[in-house]
């Protein structure tokens, strides 16, 4: 199932159970899997038109009235386009607004550079009160969704839209605020988020054949970062590689480096977008172009091990 469908099903279920939940779209309800919501919820599924700034502040106003609004768009328009509305109407006023940004980073594919958000986590991470969550698969999204609903405050859900391979079993348990150890290891900590996880697993096969025992940790919540989980791992392995579908400035690499620099300085190598803008292309082409493949991850591990 596509992630947008999995999300829409969860949201629909929640809206049936809780009449305070409202969903706002800005002329992207159909691509985000919510094309039929306005029929199902005529009062609570609202299309504001192409006006994301207005959508964000409307949501803040609704939250002040006791509603739980979800605002949805493609990642660049759900974040950088409305940065001040997120900062002031939502976060400074500390409103219970959930922001759903779809097609993060290279997954915007043929929509190209204008639609490719490589900076959204960096921008939002520096705004107080914001929680940032990026699921790797449907099971994780579905398991954590009720925790997001229960949490009172702003949450950014950075969400892949299309089919994504299942990583986790449907019964797997997650804590919104704890990182997830996918494989324990002793030589290097690989921290990954979002759609990069498959490349990390591919890289791990090669690493295992070279007798490199990597610990793989999924950071699904980049803010607040699970310092405890990160420190537990890097104190054991003594080095790390970060892998993210985002600029290596401001995102996962920065978050891990901040934890490391404060408590346990170690060598870190990074995989991600090296401060470049996006471009059109399918995901495999873009991964090659931005050096985000399994082989690139293996090279980064070899490099960081030499620096230990």
């Amino acid at each position, binding site marked *: 199932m596509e992630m947008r469908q999995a999300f829409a099903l969860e949201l629909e279920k929640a809206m049936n159970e809780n009449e305070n939940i409202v969903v706002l779209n800005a002329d992207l309800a159909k691509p985000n899997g919510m094309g039929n919501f306005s029929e199902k919820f005529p009062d609570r599924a609202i299309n504001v038109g192409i006006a994301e*700034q207005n959508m*964000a502040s409307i949501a803040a106003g609704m939250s*002040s009235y*006791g509603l739980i609004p979800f605002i949805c768009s493609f990642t660049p328009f759900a974040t950088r386009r409305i940065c001040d509305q997120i900062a002031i109407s939502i976060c400074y006023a500390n409103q219970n607004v959930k922001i759903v940004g779809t097609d993060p980073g290279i997954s915007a594919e043929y929509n190209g550079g204008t639609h490719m958000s490589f900076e959204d986590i960096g921008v939002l991470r520096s705004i107080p009160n914001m929680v940032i969550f990026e699921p790797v698969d449907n099971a994780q999204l579905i398991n954590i969704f009720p925790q997001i609903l229960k949490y009172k405050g702003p949450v950014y859900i950075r969400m892949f839209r299309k089919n994504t391979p299942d990583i986790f079993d449907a019964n797997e348990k997650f804590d919104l605020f704890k990182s997830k150890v996918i494989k324990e290891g002793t030589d290097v900590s690989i921290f990954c988020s979002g759609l990069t996880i498959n490349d990390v697993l591919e890289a791990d096969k090669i690493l295992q054949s070279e007798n490199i025992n990597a610990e793989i940790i999924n950071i699904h919540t980049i803010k607040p970062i699970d310092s405890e989980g990160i420190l537990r791992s890097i104190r054991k392995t003594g080095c790390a590689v970060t892998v993210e579908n985002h600029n290596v400035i401001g995102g996962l690499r920065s978050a891990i480096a901040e934890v490391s620099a404060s408590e346990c300085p170690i060598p870190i190598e990074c995989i991600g977008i090296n401060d470049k803008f996006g471009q059109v292309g399918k995901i495999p082409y873009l991964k090659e172009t931005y050096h985000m493949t399994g082989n690139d991850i293996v090279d980064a591990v070899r490099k960081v091990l030499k620096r230990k």
Partner: protein
Amino acid sequence: MLDFNSKCIEIRKNILTEIGTLGVGHIGGSLSIVETLVMLYYKHMNIDPTNPKKEGRDRLVVSKGHSGPAVYAVLAEKGYFPKSLLLTLNKPGTNLPSHCDMNRTVGVDMTTGSLGQGFSCAVGIAQASKIKKDNAKIYTIIGDGETQEGQIWEAAMYASAHKLDNLIAFTDYNKLQLDGTVDEICKIDPLDDKWKAFGWNVFVVEDGNDCEQVDKAIEYAKSINNKKPSMIILNTIKGCGVNFAIKAGKGNHSMNISQEMMLDGIKELENRQKGDDN
């Protein structure tokens, strides 16, 4: 109407005390909306200062958030918090910051200060009230300079498209903004035609610093029943009611106020009050 006029003088004295005690502040745009705040808080709004979070109450979003001192002056006068708090405006750790903050100040319905956003928030509140079917009225005040923000027009379009007839907005049309006159910086006229074109009821108040005229416009906006939001354009004077502020003209958006100026201003208001009382 004598009582409202007298109340306006009290509120202006509070504003002068707040800003004068600190020595600097947004006096012009605070003084220009006093009559509107008094008519809302003393006549029209369904609110309860002893229960500030009352369900289904009417709301006010002062989108021109720098008029915080005027809002605090009224809230204190209404008994939301002690008047002594007014002396803490912008002092370290205060709950009365320059710009309205719902998480700090009892009685403030929405955090504002980044212009244009509060207006959208008010639209969201009006929509939420429709969803909850609680028949609340939602009031909001925007600045004339703020009208230059694109977000205002996104929200204006939404409010009429979604028939938010529970929303009554005011434009504080005092013709001045920080850098100069509105006409010099970026003209917004014809303002009434713009709002009409966006599908709103429009009421132009010739003197927005006259309680009776403001009251009539609010009464009319409340009674009209045509599924449209309403905009009341208030022709006001920035700095209204205090001579030194009016004389400062373009300079009164935010200005230094000495103790002497504060005391002179308060005296001027007291003299006017005596005159009114006679």
